[in-house]
């Protein structure tokens, strides 16, 4: 071995002697370990990398540009952004012609929140190399985070830069940012186009697929939404967002078992997600496992105490369980958080009716009627209350309102729940406005439906009660065993509404501002307690303040 070594050392050692004056030692090339630094850096072996950098900087007395550059990158990864900025700046001094240095200076500035400064530096870097998509992309990001969406100039700048980046090189994240910019400037069509192009370019990116799916969901294109969400789940079966959105759609269509299967996966990935537990709770509710539903919803409520949707659902489940006092608390809390939803006041009124607080129930109905514009159910419930308490005139007024809303909805081909129609018809008879054309036809249809088994709405037993009887009250008083039987059909009726709330949740994940429209647009609350009729009770004024303020 030793023999073999010698010739080489000789050979190497003799080389410099020939060429130059003997005394001067050869200066080491500062870049000689760059490859090694890079190799360790990309393997994320930062400790070794730092050691090598330290050695190299000592050897070159801080002249090695790349070593400083990587040192700064590592510092930034470790969260020391200010220090990294300083190092990048010294790199830029060492080699002002390298656009990478400027790009990193800008990046650090961006991370420090100095967006305007970052934009300036990016423009500098762009001057050195205009064909760099990264510069354009990051400029786009910078413009988009300057929170000034009303300023058309900034938005168009962002779009311009991102489009320029896409022309140079298509990258998923550029698509995502561009889509987000469009969404923030409320330009949904453009956003859909961008995401479509993105999905075409990289069909397996689950984030893009999910985002596009959620967007379609918001636009009400359920078929397309489901398609994209399904694709996302094929490539990543545990994609939390996609599961939640797809699950809520399944819930809407009554596939509770499939939805539950998906939720189980999500529960493993994100065990502390409030919307997830809300949706699971409503799945249980639909399967009539009320106690499980309550415990899931309470978990959701614990995780997100200020989410009115969870409170709404809790209120609904408790109403179904005839726990009116609890229902009142949840609904009252929900109205405090979301004071603009008519259906919420209606539920509150139902709870109050059952708690024999008629004054407040009436007030709550009034509020509900004032806020609601499209749901005939609100008026129907109010009419029933008024009728039951002898206010025929008021009931008639509400009935006319129902007709108006129904006529309005008819044009948009909304299907009405048969129980709602039944009930309204009875109301019509009782009010002697009778056989209104509005009702006859759909009512017949539903009767046929009832006749042919297999329609999700099985029986309408409870709605067959004549108005003004004491039956409902008896029912309420009856024991739990009896309760379950008699109440079942009503519960099944309340399903469609409930699952629409979780649906809004899932799309709300992406775009908070879109929620209110969604929530009030899609739900068709078939209040379970619609048919409940109460015997006229003596008014008992107890609490003066308005019911929804009572949890203040």
């Amino acid at each position, binding site marked *: 071995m030793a023999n073999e070594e010698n010739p080489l050392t000789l050979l190497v050692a003799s080389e410099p002697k020939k060429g130059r004056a003997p005394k*001067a030692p050869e200066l080491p*090339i500062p870049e*000689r370990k760059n490859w090694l630094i890079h190799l360790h850096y*990309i393997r994320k072996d930062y400790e070794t990398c730092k050691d*090598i950098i330290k050695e190299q900087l000592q050897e070159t007395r801080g002249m090695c540009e790349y070593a400083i550059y990587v040192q700064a990158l590592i510092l930034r990864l470790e969260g020391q952004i200010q220090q990294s900025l300083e190092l990048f700046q010294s790199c830029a001094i060492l080699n002002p012609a390298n656009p990478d240095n400027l790009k990193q200076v800008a990046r650090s500035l961006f991370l420090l929140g100095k967006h305007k400064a970052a934009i300036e530096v990016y423009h500098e870097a762009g001057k050195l190399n205009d064909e760099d998509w990264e510069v354009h992309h990051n400029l786009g990001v910078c413009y988009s985070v300057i929170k000034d969406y009303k300023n058309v100039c900034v938005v168009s700048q962002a779009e311009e830069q991102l489009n320029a980046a896409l022309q140079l090189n298509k*990258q998923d994240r550029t698509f995502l940012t561009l889509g987000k910019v469009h969404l923030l400037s409320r330009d949904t069509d453009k956003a859909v186009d961008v995401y479509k192009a993105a999905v075409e370019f990289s069909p397996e990116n689950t984030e893009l697929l999910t985002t596009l799916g959620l967007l379609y969901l918001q636009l009400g294109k359920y078929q397309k939404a489901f398609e994209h969400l399904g694709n996302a789940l094929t490539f990543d*079966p545990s994609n939390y967002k996609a599961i939640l959105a797809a699950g809520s759609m399944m819930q809407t269509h009554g596939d509770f078992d499939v939805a539950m299967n998906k939720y*189980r*996966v999500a529960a493993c990935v994100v065990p502390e997600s409030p919307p997830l537990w809300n949706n699971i709770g409503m799945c249980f509710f639909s399967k009539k496992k009320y106690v499980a539903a309550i415990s899931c919803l309470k978990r959701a409520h614990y995780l997100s105490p200020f989410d009115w949707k969870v409170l709404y659902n809790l209120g609904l489940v408790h109403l179904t369980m005839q726990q009116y006092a*609890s229902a009142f608390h949840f609904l009252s809390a929900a109205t405090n958080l979301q004071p603009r939803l008519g259906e919420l006041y209606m539920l509150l009124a139902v709870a109050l009716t059952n708690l024999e607080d008629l004054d407040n129930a009436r007030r709550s109905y009034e509020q509900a009627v004032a806020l609601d514009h499209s749901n005939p159910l609100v008026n129907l419930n109010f009419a029933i209350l008024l009728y039951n308490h002898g206010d025929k005139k008021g009931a008639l007024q509400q009935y006319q309102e129902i007709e108006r809303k129904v006529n309005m909805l008819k044009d948009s081909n909304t299907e009405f729940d048969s129980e709602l129609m039944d009930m309204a018809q009875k109301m019509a008879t009782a009010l002697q406005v009778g056989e209104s054309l509005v009702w006859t036809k759909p009512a017949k249809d539903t009767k046929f439906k009832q006749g042919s088994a297999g329609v999700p709405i099985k029986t309408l037993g409870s709605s067959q009660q004549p108005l003004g009887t004491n039956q409902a009250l008896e029912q309420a008083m009856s024991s739990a065993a009896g309760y379950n039987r008699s109440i079942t059909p009503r519960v099944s009726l309340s399903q469609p509404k409930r699952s629409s709330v979780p649906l809004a949740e899932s799309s709300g994940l992406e775009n908070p501002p879109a929620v209110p429209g969604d929530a009030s647009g899609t739900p068709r609350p078939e209040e379970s307690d619609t048919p409940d009729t109460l015997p006229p009770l003596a008014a008992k004024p107890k609490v003066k303040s308005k019911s929804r303020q009572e949890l203040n």
Partner: protein
Amino acid sequence: VFLWPSGDSNGATSCYINGKWLDAHYDPVANLYTFSSCIVLADLHGDGENKLVVGDLGTGSSNMKLKVYRGTGLMSENTLLDLPTGLVSFLMDQHEPRTPAIAVASGPYIYVYKNLRPYFKFTLPPLEVNALEQDVWNQAREDMIDPLSLKEMLDSIRDKADVPLSVRSLRFLMLDPQDMEAFVNLYKEQPIRRQTVITCISTLKKNMADEDAVSCLVIGTESKDVYILDPEAFTVLTKMSLPSAPTQMDVTGQFDVEFRITVACRNGNIYVLRRESPKPKYCIELSSHPVGLVRIGKNVVVGCAQETLQGFTQKGKKLWTVCLPAPVTTMSVMDLPTRGFQAVLVGLANSEVHLYRDKNLISTIKTPDIVTSICFGRYGREDGTLIMTTKGGGLIVKILKRTAVFDDRDSAPGPPLAQSIRLNVPKKTKLYVDQTMRERENSVAMHRAFQMDLSRLRLAAARAYVKALESSLTPMSSSLSEPLRMNAVVQGLGPSFKLTLNIQNTAVCRPVMNLAISFLYDESLYSMKTAFFKVTIPLLVPGLNYPIDTFVECLSDKGISDIIKVFVLREGKSAPLLTAHINMPVSEGLALN
């Protein structure tokens, strides 16, 4: 026949038995610090038996070695002068016997070994020197300028020159003025050189595709160039430039016919170079740094730092992406021409090696440590041998069983495992049911009781609030003309306490004047020098905090304490602006008479 020793390493490796691989050798203390680019299997002696040649980086700064393994043992060791960047074996001539030479790239040199003996040293052609810089140094040599003006001139050259300065000038610019003279004298006689270093090395068949055809060396340099060297004369046949420094290369084709060099670069892009084009033909821009680059047939497979494995066509179109469970450490191709099998081996930071055919994971090997380099090929006389070195310096050798079959099943999994895990929903308890029943039966009463209590609570709260307002007990004064804030601190163990009142005027600009402070306390328990005084500062400037000290003496030694009330008063008004109740601590010392 080459025989694998058995028994000695079984104990260490038996727990990693994988159905498809035989554990041939595992030495956890082989002390190898190396990368995939520095490992090669070659029939060094022309005896039909492949040896393992490893360029060992030693400690990273010293003790670099060229190691040759035969079977499980180290056969020879040559000292290297600098860190080996890459190592290839290649046939440099047509002479018999056809034994390959080993080329070790290190710094700006390539050391060529034949029969494990040093044979030739190639030095990279020097880079162009800045003409102005040359001029300046010429003047210095003739002592026409002093070191300080030399520095000035070099400085100005550095700032605007297209050609960077040489190491010598850069080093000179960093010197202290007193060292400059000596430095200039030492170096001025020598010619200025700008040298770059090799970052990666590979081989390219010269003009025949045969297994044992003569190959050219292809080297990538820090100066963003790619050189192709003639195997016999070691002259530069072609020079091509890249936009960034290359980190690794894959070369295919023949130099005289057509070739393709796929280069991963430090800027995170991959470029494809072809014959007759000095600039890259195609470019793949990745979103993160490429860690491994492998070519399978006509496709390029890249392992990215963002824990993904991506497939591209030769022209840079993205084919597929797979997410990996951990960061990539190294990659290599697994090529079994006898079986027509090609796949990609990916070393991961979670101590696993994954085998991918296209985007499908077809096998996983668990390793005792993180693998840092992988090499698959013929070792000894065994065709399917997998050589790996680990982060801790270990050496692992595995042999592919001849019976091993890799199913090309689609890795698209069925339902995820988590789907069958039960949800964590608590059981309903009897207590819960009982409470539910109770509520059902008494909901009206419960509701009314609650509303009643709520009203009472509100009433009580309102009363307390009014009382506090009336006696100015709030920490901020409610009067608009004297918006004051006060807090009190008690210091001391007793019997003497120091009472500090911090008073602040919270008005925007109006000062407060003529304030007085008075104390009310049980005179049998406490004594104060002055129970009433005017605020020492006649005027409270807005925003400033005024601490006012006073001393309290506790008269009792019975270990009891009481409240001292503080009133901030305005002259001429009997109602206090602010009131504070100070809970005095128990005196822990005895009063001295």
